[in-house]
């Protein structure tokens, strides 16, 4: 049967499913072609950025169009999903890529690096992300994972005459390759234990093996495989203690692309993390009979030593370390790097709450929303730093920012918005994101009666006060200190536009977050491939959402 299935070409309808990944890849090819016809080394290549942005814009539109035509079953012989969950993340990643691209041309030109490869690499990375968030099979998953990562390593080292950039690329690549190898090793173990790479089948087989008294010896290898896969994720999302590369890489890489790395890569790693953990390791089984019945689950809960416990450690360590170390930084880029570690910690808090039991699956929408709010705040912050940077003159310490707010009122206002959003102060997107995450933790804590969740939320709150301190320092520099020399203003319209877009969404999502919340809820409800216990929750959520929105939700998972 499987052989025959492989020989049958996929149905035409399934090709729609690869469009989000295909469009950026094709745009990359178009860019190469355009570059061939480019004459003169001095003339600017800004138009390449615009073409690439159009490509990503098209991807965004595709995600929008496909939103109502999702499928519950995997396409391309069980390798990819086409669900709102993946569309949500593809959309987020392409938006992030698009904005980062618009911030780049002036930056590249001033560094003498006005080359097509930069845009191409971002496009290829986005293409990898699109497949990564869609993957239904550990093989596609790993290939897409690398397709996303390798271009990013190259971008990190893009300023090749700059020692710090070379260092960043090297560090990122070696550590990244190492963690990818470990992850692959974990995948191999899972394959060895279950005989398959398909996530859904792994999920069923794993729980089958674990509940079967005859095959208890496989537990160890499953556990180890899961932990290794998890470590790969932790590396990509920059969660402590897998964060060591972050500050150096963020500090050395070309600034506009750091925004892309910090947001899109993180989001694209969180998506398969949700999918893999819930699909492959989210099943619940029973062992024994009668009185001695035992519930078997890889979640673990608190101190049952499952993935929730691992995430608990990661979350706590990331929040504390990220925030405390960020305080001591004098370099804003490094501060933002450490704060992105802290943000990974907050996201993991939402992750722990929503992963604690199948019943809370819908709370993943907090994770999704947080990622959206985080994307605009962080991208904007790096964009502002890139806005002032030029060859031989970097603007990255607090002192460099002194008095900027008065000299460039618009940019200063935008930076203020990004900082308030990142710090989580109303009425900005970051506040609603944090609220949403803390809310899910408090709710799960109440529903389960386990106070650990509430203490986790309290820890998150207290560490975010530290966050307020270092984000405010940026404002202190910008507005409360005088500047001795004038800083040259750079009025690149595209960069300014991208910053305004980031600022707009940072405020809009803080004041009217309803639409984005509903979208993230729909994305979570529509996530395909989840085990049955979660599917029931998703179905309940779908009905509740339909009732609340008052309109029949026509699209989405309706192919039977």
């Amino acid at each position, binding site marked *: 049967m499987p052989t025959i299935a492989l020989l049958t070409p996929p149905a035409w309808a399934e090709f729609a499913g690869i469009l989000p990944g295909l469009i950026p890849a094709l745009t990359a090819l178009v860019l190469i072609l355009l570059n061939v016809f480019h004459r003169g080394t001095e003339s600017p290549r800004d138009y390449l950025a615009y073409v690439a942005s159009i490509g990503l814009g098209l991807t965004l539109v595709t995600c929008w169009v496909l939103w109502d035509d999702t499928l519950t079953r995997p396409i391309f012989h069980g390798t990819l999903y086409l669900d709102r969950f993946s569309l949500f993340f593809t959309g987020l990643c392409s938006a992030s890529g698009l904005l980062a691209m618009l911030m780049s041309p002036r930056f590249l030109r001033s560094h003498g690096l006005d080359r097509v490869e930069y845009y191409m690499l971002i496009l290829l990375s986005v293409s990898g992300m699109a497949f990564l968030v869609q993957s239904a099979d550990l093989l596609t998953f790993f290939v897409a994972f690398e397709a996303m990562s390798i271009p990013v390593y190259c971008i990190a080292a893009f300023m090749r005459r700059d020692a710090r950039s070379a260092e960043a690329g090297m560090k990122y690549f070696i550590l990244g390759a190492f963690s990818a190898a470990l992850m692959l090793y974990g995948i191999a173990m899972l394959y060895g234990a279950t005989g398959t790479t398909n996530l859904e089948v792994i999920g069923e087989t794993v729980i089958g093996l674990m509940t079967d008294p005859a095959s208890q010896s496989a537990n160890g290898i499953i556990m180890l495989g899961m932990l290794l896969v998890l470590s790969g994720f932790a590396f990509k999302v920059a969660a402590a203690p897998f964060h060591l590369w972050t500050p150096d890489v963020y500090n050395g890489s070309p600034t506009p692309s750091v925004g892309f790395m910090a947001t899109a890569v993180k989001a694209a790693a969180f998506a398969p993390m949700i999918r893999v953990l819930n699909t492959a390791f989210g099943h619940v089984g029973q062992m024994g009979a009668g009185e001695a019945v035992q519930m078997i689950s890889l979640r673990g809960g608190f101190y049952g030593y499952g993935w929730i416990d691992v995430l608990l450690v990661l979350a706590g360590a990331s929040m504390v370390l990220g925030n405390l170390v960020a305080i001591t930084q004098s370099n804003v880029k490094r501060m933002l790097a450490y704060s992105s570690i802290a943000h990974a910690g907050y996201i993991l808090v939402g992750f722990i709450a929503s992963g604690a039991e199948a019943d809370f699956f819908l709370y993943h929408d907090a994770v999704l929303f947080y990622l959206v709010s985080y994307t605009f705040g962080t991208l904007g912050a790096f964009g502002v730093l890139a806005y002032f940077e030029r060859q031989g003159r970097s603007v990255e310490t607090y002192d460099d920012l002194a008095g900027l707010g008065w000299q460039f009122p618009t940019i200063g206002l935008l930076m203020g918005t990004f900082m308030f959003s990142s710090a989580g*102060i109303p009425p900005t997107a970051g506040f609603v994101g944090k609220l949403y995450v*803390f809310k899910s933790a408090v709710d799960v804590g109440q529903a389960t009666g386990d106070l650990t969740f509430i203490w986790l939320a309290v820890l998150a709150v207290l560490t975010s006060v530290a966050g*307020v301190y270092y984000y405010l*320092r940026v404002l*202190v520099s910008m507005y409360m200190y005088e500047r001795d020399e004038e800083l040259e203003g750079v009025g690149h319209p595209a960069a300014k536009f991208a910053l305004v877009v980031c600022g707009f969404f940072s405020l809009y999502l803080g004041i009217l977050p309803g639409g984005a919340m509903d979208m993230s809820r729909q994305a979570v409800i529509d996530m395909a491939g989840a085990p049955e216990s979660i599917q029931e929750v998703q179905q309940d959520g779908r009905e509740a959402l339909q009732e609340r929105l008052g309109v029949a939700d026509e699209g989405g998972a309706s192919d039977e």
Partner: protein
Amino acid sequence: MEPLSLANGDSFPWLTVLTFGPMLGVLALMLVPREQKDALRNIALLTTLGVFVVSLGIYFYFDPSVVPASGEPFAFQLTDGPVDWIGALGIQYYMGIDGISLWLVLLTTFLMPITVYSTYSAVETHVKEYMICLLFLQTGMIGALVSLDVFLFYIFWEMMLIPMYLIIGVWGSDKRVYAAVKFFLYTMVGSLLMLIGILYVYFQTGDASGGYSFLFTEMAAVDLTFNEQIWLFGAFFLAFAIKVPLFPFHTWLPLAHVQAPTAGSVILAGVMLKMGTYGLLRYAFPLFPAALKAYAPWIGILAVIGVVYGALMAMVQDNVKSLVAYSSISHLGFCVLGLVAMTPQALAGGLYIMLAHGISTGGLFLAVGILYERRHTKEISDFGGISKSMPIFATLFMVIVFASAGLPGLNGFVGEFLALLGTAESHFLWFTGSGAAVFTQTGGGYSLEWAMAALPAVDQVGPEMTAYVLAVVAATGVIWVACYLLWMWRRVMFGPLDKEENRVLSDLNTREMVYMIPVVLMAIFMGVFPKFFLGPMEPSMHGFLEYMAAEQKEAGFDGSVVVQEPDDDWTPDQSPAEKMRENNR
């Protein structure tokens, strides 16, 4: 989507207009080039004056006879909404006022134009941003006072911080950055813990109506266990106590006041500190009544320590501004003591102190600002004999000093007298046997009996001793306040005019008189006609106390809240607008 109708029925959406009115001014300011400083100042002044005029409307249409239904702590009127704001989280846009918030809103709108007018000469740099910050601040403050959705309240509560942080940090004196950051972080710690508390209560609202809700009325209806209340009250109390600020959470205040520009100090002392006491009364007390009973004696002790400590600290200050700042700690100690005593007089006193302190301390800071603009110093020793060169100023300053010191006939006296009277009669502040048991119970092994041992033994003197002791110790604050304020005034105003710089000081100009005189008149008016202000509050306060009494009865502390039937002559039974209509007929 249904059409957006904010107002209940067909009445004018007063509170929405009041809250977001300053935003119109912000828009106008953004269009004016930064070089035209006079235009910027005038726009800001006109905006705040306009808001003040509109706010008279809420006084006019406020119906004092509305009383809370039984089982409800408050009865709100002139409501806007509720309109769904963030449907996914059950957050609604809902505003309304009652007798408690009415005067605080009016205090805000009254002080704002005065503040803006006072900055005409004080602020020369970045005038545009300064005015924008002031107007944002006004939106935040009014919004926090009128919100009936706890989430909405929280947004406004936090929104106040940003402009105030900038005002202190950008336009303050030498150590402004340190002061601004400390101010921000202190307030932030408290309010974030409160946010967790809010979320906890929020998730208890779901059972009855299905969806969760942040509406205050829904939250107040939640039944919480005693243990939960103890923790949640702690979270709320911390947030508000930092804002008040209650001893020992006060350390940010003198710093912030000394560093802030005059307008920042006036608003900070005049209105923002009241957010803390208002929050206690509006949120912390009615949401967690059983926990309040357990905490009340301790809060009372903190308040009394604040009264005495603030006064003693004020006495030894060399800097006029930090003297006034410490006097704020002392005055707000009276206020919290009054609020927590749970008797009609004490509650009225606490609320009245909130208003009186806003006027008199605002006036003190304005006066200090006038001196600072002339001499560029705040050290008391740099002055002396000023009354000879500035007689008009000396007179106005004197009235305000007397008002703040609680001279009968001026506004400070009414509140302090009522608060002390009510505290002495309080049953709520008693360390009763059961109250003590409550503590040993929640301590979970860590018994607090050692703390009880320091107090007079209950069986020897009777529990009422606690309230008397608190009232008596607090009453000494009235003496201290006279000491430090009059002493300060003597050192600044009288004595030989021995410093050359002080001889040539010019007396108040027209602009300064225009903003000082309303403050002085208001201080006198509030002292002579307290009924005008207390009357409309009365039904709201009575309803609140009845609610608290019922809740305490349920929690097993029957009779701890003193409720008296309000005097009918005392309270107007219709809104001024209604009365006018009747007279015309």
